[in-house]
């Protein structure tokens, strides 16, 4: 393989990895436009909570998250990418998440979860986006909510938010 091709392969893997982080950024900040930007318009998903067109999924998913989760935090790892061509790749990634939800009686719970994403990525017009993303569930927990806002935790004044007030926007890291 030529040096140019080897550099391109490294850069392509990095670009896909960054788009995977973008997806999480969008979900945790509830940024619909950003979420859509990680999928091709004709992409599809199998998420169980929604199966079908990827952009329709985005329209469904952001309100779904806001309605069902008080907060959510997704952390990806274990990224494996295999190229089928210069413009097509398959990928798996692990997601170790945590979220807070309220039971019907108002009791708060923590829901840590282990999921995997099973993807097909395609490069069109020089940009890698998902053509397919499926959600695989490996584990979850329903723990009593143990978060605190008093004592030393009161010192954490900068809290993540689900809008453009979040610091990541102020830093210019999101378009």
């Amino acid at each position, binding site marked *: 393989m030529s040096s140019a091709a080897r550099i391109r392969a490294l850069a392509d893997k990095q670009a896909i990895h960054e788009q995977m982080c973008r997806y999480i950024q969008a979900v945790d900040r509830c940024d619909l436009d950003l979420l859509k930007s990680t999928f091709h318009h004709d992409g599809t998903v199998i998420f169980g909570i929604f199966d079908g067109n990827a952009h329709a999924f985005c329209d469904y998913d952001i309100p779904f998250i806001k309605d069902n989760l008080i907060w959510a935090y997704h952390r990806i790892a274990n990224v494996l990418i295999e190229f089928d061509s210069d413009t097509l790749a398959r990928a798996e990634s692990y997601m170790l998440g945590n979220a807070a939800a309220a039971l019907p009686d108002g009791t708060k719970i923590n829901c840590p979860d282990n999921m995997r994403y*099973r993807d097909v990525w395609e490069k069109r017009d020089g940009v890698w986006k998902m053509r397919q993303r499926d959600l*695989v569930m490996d*584990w979850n927990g*329903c723990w009593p909510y143990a978060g605190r806002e008093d004592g030393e935790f009161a010192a954490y004044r900068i809290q993540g938010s689900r809008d453009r007030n979040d610091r990541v926007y102020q830093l210019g890291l999101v378009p």
Partner: protein
Amino acid sequence: MSDNNEQQLLQQLEDKQALRELGTLFARAADRADRSLLASLFADGAQVSDGGFSGPASEFVGVCAAPAGLERSFHSVSNEFYQVEGDTARGELYVITVSTWNKDGAKTDTLIGGRYLDEYRKVGGAWKIARRTFVHEWNMSFPTTTVWDEGLFGMIKLRGTRGQDDPSYTLFGEKA
């Protein structure tokens, strides 16, 4: 920068990426109980020290693929740090493993945080694990609270398994 230096830098980037993928493939092999994939990740004569096991990788593969009472596991790897020296390398990886055990009729979720301290060897152009030592840092155990069939989690129909029927095999195929 000379062309020679650039070639070395490119090689180093490729080596580190390949080592990261090796660490991730180990997690996949362990979580899918994929004996042949797991065996393919070790160099000849490789040694493993992990919890109660200490011995040759060829024996570890069988132990890792069939622990009594393990229903599922999830090895989440991060903080990969590598030093490459030609065809050998050393590395440190952080891992959080979440497992569900079914023993004596009771199910327990166990979270273990630790590190892999590794030695690697490049064999025929492919990086392999020559020695892996697991360093334990912390653990937590709870009676399992996993929800499979109700509410939000119940809607998610693709489920991970310890076997070839895991959804990932339909995308990646079986690995020798």
